[in-house]
């Protein structure tokens, strides 16, 4: 029992980070492709610009998630960036 708990405590943060990188990173990138629609660019150009930038957002998020000191901090960072993006995305949808 104790061993299982220890295992979990030891690998939990890593799994959390992997989840944050894979899914959190993608969600953030996807959100940015919608948020960019709030820019003054024409719709069509904004769609394309959002797609172009999304992979850099995704890659940056993954690096962030593994660069910071703890898993909670990794998630917090993603959420802090996601909030203004969500606001922008909400304004256009």
């Amino acid at each position, binding site marked *: 029992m104790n061993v299982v708990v220890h295992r979990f405590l*030891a690998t*939990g943060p890593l799994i959390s980070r992997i989840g944050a990188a894979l899914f959190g990173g993608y969600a953030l990138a996807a*959100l940015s*492709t919608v948020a960019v629609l709030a820019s003054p660019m024409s719709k069509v150009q904004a*769609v394309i610009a959002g*797609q172009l930038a999304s992979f850099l957002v995704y890659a940056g998020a*993954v690096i962030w998630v593994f660069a910071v000191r*703890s898993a909670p901090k990794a998630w917090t960072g993603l959420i802090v960036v996601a909030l203004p993006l969500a606001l922008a995305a909400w304004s256009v949808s």
Partner: protein
Amino acid sequence: MTTKSEQQSAGRGIRQSMSELHTWVGLLLGWVLYAMFLTGTVSYFKDELSQWARPELARLTERPDAAVVAQRIATAFDKVAPGTSQWSVRLPDDRNNSAYAFWRTASREPGQRGFAEGHFDPATGERVAARDTLGGDFFYRFHFQFHYMPVPWGRWLAGIAAMFMLVAIISGVITHKKIFVDFFTFRWGKGQRSWLDAHNMLSVFGLPFHAMITYTGLVTLMAMYMPWGGQVAIKSPAERQQLQAELSAFTQPGKPSGQKVPMASITEMVREAQQRWGHDNVGRVNVTHSGDAAARVTVTRGDSGRLSMSPQYMEFEGTTGRLLSARDEVGGAAETRGVLYALHLGRFGDGFTRWLYFLVSLAGTAMVGTGLVMWTVKRRQKLSDPARPHIGFRLVERLNIAGIAGLSIAMTAFLWGNRLLPTTLAGRANWEVDLFFIVWALALGHALLRPVRAAWVEQLGAASVLLFLLPVLNAATTQRPFWHSVAQGDWVFAGIDLMCWAFAALHLVLARRTARHHLAAPIKRRADRPGAAAIASGGAAE
């Protein structure tokens, strides 16, 4: 409340965590990436490989006039596919000796878009009978969508692998404090150090290229990977068409009028395009509803002479030849995407640029390959019982053999299949592809069964022999042996023969080095210096 491992990661610093990220992201899809890199590398000569794969098609000594060829093909289509709603032809150029066309057929099953395709002789406009093969297109398509799986799955897998690569590149750079010093450092015959130095040199040498090629690879399929902005913003069919027009010159056929009217001269339309873009810079002619009052002819600009793949075309009324519209530019973001797309495909370049692309891309392949091998070399020293390594280690070791040396054999086998499979074989093109995978699977079986060093040496050796003998096979099975090609100045065929020999030599060198290197390795074991391995692996992060 942080756990022990969390405290450790806090103390280790960013370079250590980036080093680990680099290691695992690189390993997990490393074999997929290696295959994508190598098949992508040879795809820079896709058109040349396709010419080689169809030796029946005569070599073009000079580039035919697009305006004349387009008219010939148009005339041929009156017989080949009368009443088709659309046909489209890629005109022959310096790298393609045939006109390749596809056209819509009446679809038999509902929901299925019916297309047919064929090669046409630019001199006569007749359909040519070449052996059924995918040629260079097999490697090209495998490079981003693999095989034996639905196309979307393959493209998603390629996208995930590319994303892993992008992360591996960024984390690899952060890991490297002394990136320039390391570039000029090479320690031969020092086991892990040599692998590390080779990996660093290959990576740093081509770093801008590797980063560019990975990112632009994602850009080529970005609408599929990131559809969300489009789903929110693009609602009406008109908007969708507007977006599509920013990305591609390919137009969907409209509604026919039902009124038969003879077509105007296609030659004249292409002439107009030639005046606009240059005589040798017409890429494609696309005709919808030929012979109908509503017929449209779109002439598309070729890829050379501009660093963008964004659509440029002229649209003509088919029955009068009147220019309806000319598209010369797209919006800023779309143009950026066009440039990135063009950078990935490298079609704008002349022969010299293409060779540069090929060589740096080959260095990228070697970067992935050395990275994979390094994973095992680095860990072998730390194994508690080197005679019986754990299952994960053995798996990586074996997959490396099949993924690297085995792929060379499989790709060469595909080319052998092209020369050996009977032309009458039903589904011949598929058999060539099946042969590629059968041989690759056999290589995996061999890698699992044989001792590691023997498996490496045997597979590299087999690849070398197969590559070396391919020009011999070509000489025996076609009218275009090496000496004939050289005498004729046919550098496509002669070049592929020479490249086979160059790659045969490379595999031979690798086989010999592997045979010798591993013999020496056990003597140099680091048992006398227990701390050395730890320092070395930690040193990788410096």
